[in-house]
């Protein structure tokens, strides 16, 4: 019995309906918790994983990792769902639908809403919207570090912790004052929660549009130096080392690192035993600043010069490529990939940042930064797998157990692997099938993506969250 045939047995259920019975036969199972991957079968009954069977020898013949893959549902530590305040760009409902389409079953919303998620009332509102959506996707949230994300006065960290936030971040309003960061790390550390920092020294990025290097120079875009990220990471790590002596529970998570230097700093800090974790985004792994010049080559295929290597097939200055941090040269993208391979990067986070066309159909430097990433994350990572640059097991781990560990038990999921008797939380995708990114194919309202028109590997066939149907390929 093929998995495809097995999936047919889902009687066209509605999103949110409990999975009565699902037999996934002869597929490639990847369990990041046990570290096991291979041919297997998985049975779900009444929303629970009833049985997992690993196939051996002749039974496993013909099942390979290039076909139907089953993995635990993905976890995104960093998604902008825009509600409340900017519902034209995304709502909780559309954001969760996008997550389900991308294979994510746990999503952490960022607090840069209007108003900011700096007190429990906003969290209650976000949760109510998630409940009303009927989506089974688990919605978690980060609280703001400071009131109004203004960087001056600590937000109600204790109340937010009691209400269930999973961490604190001011994200793209990074904490400028080291003293505030120190206090936040200490206070949140005592609550058992991490500070999630977007590492950017704003003094070096005023007016910046694109990574400060060859491409930005030729295109006349204001340079965004790698040093802006690296000096902020160095500061954060120095402050963390200072705090952790007094508050052993202090934890720092650095989100969307994008430069080789920043990742090397984290690599060394981890080796020195500092309680730091980090994530990278799929777009910083797979895309480069050469895309701004019209290149559409994956980072690992990048030539030396988009003006002469023949890779420039699109018009330059696509405002959909404006993102913070900016797309970097191939060497930095390779460092992001290497960090995923060696575990320096604990997780992949999407930095899903949808916008309306009013904010993106404008001059490059005026475009609101951000890429809608929930639905294309898997495809970009599988492109790296297809190119032989990234093991499939690392992709799955960085999308499940890696970020799951950073949530520190605040998820409803007791495990980010397969557990018999636990509610089913899984994604089934077909690596032999490709799909084309089009606005119509995306569930996100912010359907502007630099990948529109691009074919990606790995069609998601089915997403199950908490034993309930989240997404099923039509």
């Amino acid at each position, binding site marked *: 019995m093929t998995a495809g045939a097995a999936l047919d047995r889902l009687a066209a259920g509605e999103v949110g309906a409990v999975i009565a019975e699902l037999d996934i036969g002869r597929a490639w199972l990847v369990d990041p918790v046990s570290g096991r991957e291979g041919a297997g079968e998985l049975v779900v009954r009444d929303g629970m994983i009833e049985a997992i069977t690993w196939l051996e020898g002749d039974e496993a013949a013909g099942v390979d990792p290039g076909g139907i893959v089953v993995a635990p549902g993905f976890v995104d530590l960093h998604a902008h769902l825009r509600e409340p305040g900017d519902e034209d760009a995304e709502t909780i409902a559309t954001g969760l639908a996008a997550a389900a389409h991308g294979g994510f079953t746990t999503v952490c919303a960022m607090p840069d809403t209007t108003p900011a998620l700096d007190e429990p009332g906003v969290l209650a509102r976000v949760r109510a919207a998630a409940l009303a959506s009927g989506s089974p996707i688990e919605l978690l949230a980060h609280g703001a570090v400071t009131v109004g994300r203004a960087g001056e006065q600590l937000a109600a960290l204790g109340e937010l912790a009691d209400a269930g936030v999973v961490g604190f971040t001011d994200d793209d309003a990074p904490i400028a004052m080291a003293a505030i960061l120190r206090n936040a790390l200490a206070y949140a550390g005592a609550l058992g929660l991490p500070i999630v920092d977007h590492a950017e020294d704003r003094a070096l990025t005023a007016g910046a549009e694109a990574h400060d290097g060859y491409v930005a120079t030729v295109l006349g875009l204001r340079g965004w130096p790698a040093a802006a990220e690296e000096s902020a990471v160095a500061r954060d790590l120095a402050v963390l080392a200072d705090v952790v002596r007094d508050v052993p529970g202090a934890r720092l998570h650095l989100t969307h690192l994008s430069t080789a230097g920043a990742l090397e700093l984290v690599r060394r800090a981890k080796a020195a035993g500092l309680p730091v974790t980090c994530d990278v985004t799929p777009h910083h792994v797979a895309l480069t600043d050469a895309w701004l010049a019209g290149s559409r080559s994956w980072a690992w295929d990048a030539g030396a010069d988009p003006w002469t290597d023949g890779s420039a097939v699109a018009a330059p200055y696509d405002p959909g490529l404006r993102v913070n941090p900016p797309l970097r040269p191939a060497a930095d993208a390779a460092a992001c990939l290497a960090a995923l391979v060696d575990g320096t990067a604990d997780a992949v986070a999407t930095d899903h940042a949808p916008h309306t066309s009013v904010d993106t159909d404008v001059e*490059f430097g005026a475009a609101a930064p951000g890429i809608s990433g929930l639905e294309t994350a898997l495809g970009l990572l599988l492109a790296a797998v297809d190119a032989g640059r990234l093991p499939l097991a690392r992709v799955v781990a960085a999308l499940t157990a890696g970020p799951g560990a950073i949530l520190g038990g605040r998820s409803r999921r007791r495990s980010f692997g397969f557990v018999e008797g636990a509610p089913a939380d899984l994604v089934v995708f077909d690596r032999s099938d490709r799909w084309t990114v089009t606005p119509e194919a995306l569930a996100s309202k912010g359907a502007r993506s630099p990948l529109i028109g691009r074919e990606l590997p790995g069609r998601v066939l089915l997403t199950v969250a908490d034993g309930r149907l989240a997404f099923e390929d039509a």
Partner: protein
Amino acid sequence: MSVAEPMAAAGASASEPIVAPGTPEVDAAPETQSVPWSHRHLLDVDRLTADEIDLVMRTTDAMREVLARPIAKVPALRGRNVTILFYEASTRTRVSFEVAAKNLSADVVNIAAATSSVTKGESLVDTVRTIEALGADMLVMRHPASGAPYLAAEIFGGSVLNGGDGWHAHPTQALLDLYTIREHLPPVPAAPGEPSPALLAGRKVVILGDLLHSRVARSNIWTLTAAGADLWLCGPSTLLRGFEAWASRGAAGRRFTVTSDIDAALRDADVVMALRIQRERMASGLLPSLREYAARYGLTRTRLAAARPDVVVMHPGPMNEGVEIAPDVAAGPNSVISGQVTNGVAVRMALLYLLAGTRT
């Protein structure tokens, strides 16, 4: 500068242009001419081939011939609407485009962004759609954001000519600069049986000043290296940021030298192009003072003595005399600055003509 000045100066100041074979017959409508030109828009010069640049030069020769006539006008673009949309203050480029379009008998609409609905918050996309709906066939635009003309070209049904975008490109300026250099430094004739050498082969060309913020410099890098020049970029290191990366990454044959050593740059130079220094650069901490800039990088007669005696001195304007260029150099015997303005009209006529030929 008066509108009439460039035309009046055209016949007087320069040597008689020679119209080479293979040049379009510019009295006729452009769509009737068979020329190897396929670009609907002129957004940048980065993809122009040496042959295409040569075609622009030869078409400009033909336009110079038109400008030398008693009535400097041809009917080539009669019935076409050229809309000039400038989001930045400009006198010479805007007027130059307007004169060029009128010399080709086009109807010209001038929009200064400060007086349009742009000040009411209208987006560039909406503005361009409106201009198209009002019947524009060609859109000449200047915009403070690098890349803005690409956005316009994506939605505009006609041709877009970039009149300067941010720090990125100023294609017509680079082509008029090349034309002006060609006029004063004629290429060495080919030896019998040998292919013609590149237009600027063996010529040392120096661009001096604020490279970082200069669209003129960026476009000139493409055209001057395409013409085979030995190109040097010189200025304070804060204003050269990023150019070393470009110099070392560019394709073979398109390399250039980047230095803060003005004496090395000027030694035996055939052409020196000084760029405007803006006062804002001091406020942003890139330079200590204008006085210090003038002392260390100002183009003075003393410094210029290190260049070749027949060195060609250029400036895209507007000048800060006494800062990046000394008044006696700007007005001196080696200066071709007023010739640049004159040639600007001819080059823009040539480009309007060539682009118009890609549409019927």
